[in-house]
């Protein structure tokens, strides 16, 4: 057992948690930050995709005119594109390669979804490639497509497992059907969720070039290692032959969490033309290239006592998936864990349609799942005359009902109390439809937020220089979440240096491997890796000092030496001290380097180890929790809803940067308000095509939709989750938001809307009912 601490304790004057400005902020506000489409490589060429107008067809293409157009280097179709070594549907695809879809466009003449790429045009200028792409003539042998699970042609099936086999398709706990039948209160409701698209402002982009058998891509990805894995496998290369770089990422929200076909296509055609190729998806192509949140319906049956205590939960979800994948968001997980309930059942049904696979989108499963349970619970509260916060407290889960484990930490009661106080919940008239402000109906609603601490691990390298500076590296990405900044702060504190002496580098597969920035794992994993690496750097410096007869620490015991602010000293006699730089200089070392592996979630074994009755290390259920409070004003004549106030209070372990964390939680709430009130991609039921695939037709919240927001975090120390005690907040702020809005709309109008988004048509006629 080493003397080194396993859990980070903030040094006096440390910067972790402080509201530091973003270290990459200057590059972003001056336009100096380079995103994946912004590298002016010599000889750069431009690729433009030709996509299919039909969703279910065989195509033949005439590229004669396009090839003759000025500036065109090549036009690739399934007939002439450089072949891949392995296709994603191949049975001998390597293990660990997890492409988001088991189908590769241009591998044959088939079209399986609308706007599937069918040709790639490469030219020496963007406008020339765009023009030539319009000259490709396509003949379709089209069949009628299946548009969704609601299509009469669609066949529903039991997937057994969803999310690439990671989640069971059917779960039962206790005896839910019997418990429901015996419950005093029985509530059944069906919820629908429109198709949502992530729409990060930066479109997906890949710049690819080959040097012999080595491939380099600048790719807009949340996971450089995952993209490297996929590209190496697809092209039959060793991993080290593929380099993926993502220094700046213009948002992702899940749609950049996988290696999608366009990235592979860019590399394929770059090999074909022997020049660097840049492929940037158009905004409409973003709707058919990088996944979406699927169209889905959930039926939730709730049994409760007259006191509002839950007795049974039965959840059924039906959704659309692609012709080749079994993807569905796992809505039931949060429904099974959020409240104490002994009887629970969940099942999934899928139907194949001619659509791209859906994929994880911010809080995948938790966001729509929480909409269902948080709306139903609200209904029951009104039905029984119980305050919405009170009914949640009556069902407060002292342990995780899904696995029976104790929580590693949970500050939900504090979140409810503090949120209610900030919001002025007690002043709310409990009766719906009673509060007016001029012509507007005013409503106030709340909902619970929660997100799991997934298991993850990663590596970081710390290189401490004798001149008092350090370079810290990990192959993570920064979606805008603040990775650059919070890792600089972490490095500063674990090395005892001011943050301006640290350079944190990320986004390159030549750096140590970090997990995908997704599932809220990046902050906890990478910061813990840095913590572990720094411990090892200090161990090496201590060894040097102990062996150095000129050091005041000569022959000291390892355990007796401590480090504070970069100075090594004896714990019991602080006058015996020496700065690390002096030790390195005497040893004629310019720097000392170590790597460290940080674990996040279940793999972490903290200092505070307790054992269960079998003397095994006790394991915990690890989740962040929070509470949203929302005020809306509804125009009774027009049915329009405006969010006018927002309060969010969350407990998410250690907060690494108060400023960026607040921004992230505000962003999560706004993302959720979009899903609640306006975001819907409409798929034509005849042609299986999206009819509003741009930012004029697909409404994301704009500045005028959003009020000022109040966000707070509850202090929370959790020594069980990782060395830094960080839970991650990428998704948490989004969970429960739609329900908080819908609950406020109910309180304003007396009308319960169970179909997202809550557009004015669904509220018309409200004036008459109140």
């Amino acid at each position, binding site marked *: 057992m080493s003397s080194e601490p396993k859990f980070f304790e903030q040094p006096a004057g440390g910067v972790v948690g402080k509201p530091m*400005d973003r270290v990459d*902020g200057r590059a972003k*506000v001056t336009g100096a930050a380079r995103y994946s489409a912004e590298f002016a490589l010599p000889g750069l060429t431009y690729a433009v995709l030709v996509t299919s107008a039909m969703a279910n067809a065989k195509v033949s293409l005439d590229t004669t005119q396009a090839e003759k157009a000025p500036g065109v280097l090549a036009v690739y179709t399934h007939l002439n594109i450089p072949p891949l070594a392995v296709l994603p549907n191949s049975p001998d695809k390597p293990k660990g390669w997890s492409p988001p879809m088991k189908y590769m466009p241009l591998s044959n003449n088939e079209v399986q979804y609308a706007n599937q790429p069918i040709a790639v045009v490469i030219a020496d200028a963007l406008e020339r490639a765009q023009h030539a792409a319009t000259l490709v003539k396509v003949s379709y042998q089209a069949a009628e497509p299946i548009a969704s699970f609601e299509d009469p042609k669609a066949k529903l099936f039991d997937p057994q497992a969803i999310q690439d086999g990671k989640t069971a398709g059917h779960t039962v706990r206790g005896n839910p059907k019997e418990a429901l039948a015996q419950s005093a209160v029985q509530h059944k409701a069906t919820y629908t969720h429109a198709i949502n698209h992530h729409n990060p402002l930066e479109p997906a982009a890949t710049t690819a070039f080959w040097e012999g058998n080595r491939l380099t891509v600048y790719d807009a990805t949340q996971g450089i290692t995952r993209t490297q894995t996929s590209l190496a496998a697809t092209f039959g290369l060793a991993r080290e032959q593929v380099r993926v770089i993502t220094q700046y990422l213009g948002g992702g929200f899940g749609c950049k969490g996988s290696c999608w076909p366009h990235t592979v296509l860019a590399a394929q055609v770059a090999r074909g033309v022997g020049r660097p190729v840049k492929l940037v998806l158009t905004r409409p192509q973003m709707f058919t290239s990088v996944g979406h949140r699927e169209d889905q319906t959930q039926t939730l049956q709730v049994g409760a006592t007259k006191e509002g205590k839950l007795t049974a939960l039965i959840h059924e979800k039906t959704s659309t998936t692609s012709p080749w994948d079994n993807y569905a968001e796992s809505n039931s997980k949060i429904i099974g864990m959020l409240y104490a309930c002994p009887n629970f059942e969940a099942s999934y049904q899928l139907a194949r349609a001619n659509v791209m696979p859906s994929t994880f989108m911010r809080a995948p499963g938790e966001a729509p799942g929480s909409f269902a349970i948080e709306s139903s619970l609200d209904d029951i509260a009104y039905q029984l005359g119980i305050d919405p916060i009170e009914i949640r407290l009556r069902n407060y889960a002292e342990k995780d009902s899904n696995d029976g484990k104790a929580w590693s930490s949970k500050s939900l009661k504090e979140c409810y109390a503090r949120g209610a106080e900030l919001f002025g919940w007690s002043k709310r008239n409990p009766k719906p439809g009673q509060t007016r402000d001029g012509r507007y109906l005013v409503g106030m609603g709340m909902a619970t937020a929660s997100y799991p601490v997934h298991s993850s691990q990663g590596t970081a390298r710390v290189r401490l220089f004798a001149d008092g500076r350090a370079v810290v590296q990990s192959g993570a990405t920064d979606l805008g979440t603040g990775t650059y900044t919070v890792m600089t702060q972490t490095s500063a504190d674990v090395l005892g240096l001011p943050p301006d002496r640290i350079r944190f580098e990320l986004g390159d597969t030549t750096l140590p491997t970090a997990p995908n920035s997704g599932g809220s794992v990046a902050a906890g994993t990478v910061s813990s890796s840095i913590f572990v690496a720094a411990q090892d750097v200090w161990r090496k410096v201590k060894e040097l000092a102990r062996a150095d007869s000129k050091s005041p620490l000569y022959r000291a015991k390892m355990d007796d030496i401590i480090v504070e602010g970069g100075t090594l000293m004896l714990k019991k006699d602080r006058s015996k001290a020496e700065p690390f730089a002096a030790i390195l200089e005497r040893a004629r070392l310019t720097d000392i380097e170590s790597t460290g592996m940080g674990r996040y979630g279940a793999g972490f074994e903290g200092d505070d180890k307790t054992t269960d009755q079998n003397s095994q290390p006790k394991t915990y259920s690890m989740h962040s929790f929070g509470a949203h409070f929302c005020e809306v004003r509804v125009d009774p004549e027009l049915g329009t809803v405006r969010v006018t106030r927002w309060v969010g209070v969350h407990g998410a372990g250690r907060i690494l940067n108060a400023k960026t964390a607040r*921004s992230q939680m505000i962003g999560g709430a706004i993302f959720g308000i979009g899903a609640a009130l306006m975001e819907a991609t409409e798929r034509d039921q005849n042609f299986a095509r999206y009819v509003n695939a741009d*930012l004029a037709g697909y409404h994301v919240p704009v500045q005028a939709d959003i009020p000022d927001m109040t966000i707070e975090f509850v202090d929370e120390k959790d020594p069980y989750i990782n060395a830094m005690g960080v839970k991650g907040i990428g998704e948490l702020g989004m969970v429960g938001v739609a329900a908080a809005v819908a609950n406020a709309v109910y309180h304003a109008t007396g009308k319960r809307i169970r179909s997202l988004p809550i557009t004015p048509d669904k509220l018309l006629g409200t004036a008459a009912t109140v």
Partner: protein
Amino acid sequence: MHPDTFDPTAGGPPPEQRPDDGSRRTFIKQASGILGLAVAPPFISQAEKLAAYTGKVEGATEMKLKVNGSIRTLRLEPRVTLLDALRENLNLTGSKKGCDQGQCGACTVLVDGRRVNSCLTLAITTQGKEITTIEGLAKGEELHPMQAAFLKHDGFQCGYCTPGQICSAVACVQEGHTKNDAEIREWMSGNLCRCGAYPNIVAAIKEVAGKGDGKS
């Protein structure tokens, strides 16, 4: 129709005279003379005129763009947008392409002090005008007050909409559309931010407007 945008279907002389400096008037002369652009007779339908226009314009022409105070000479096809000229030809990638359809505002730059969507503006129509991009706002190492305020108030996350937001915000202050939060929100609603930095952007603009130093 934006008065500064060339409209091949409009016909007739430009509404105001400008010096022969590569402005719209010059462009029409170039387009109809050097490039052989057909100025369509008025009885042809708009769609046909546009088709003819697309079909006949070929090849690059020289244009001079004044970007961030420097004259840059480029040989570009007339169909190249200001955004693509900046990003692909001048290596000024600060202006972002978020939609290429005038729907997101990420490409916002200042042309003669006015905010425009550079993705909807042909580069050749901006000759003789002052183009200011995000790269031109700071004075050396000293950030423009709006850039400093965005940094201080964390008015961004991923940073991709940020150059457009900042250019738009600078113009918003100069326009005087900052009387209160609601007015700022309304006049900044053409710039989408998917990360959801809206409240922080309002805080940044309020600070600059309050100090009265939002001028570039």
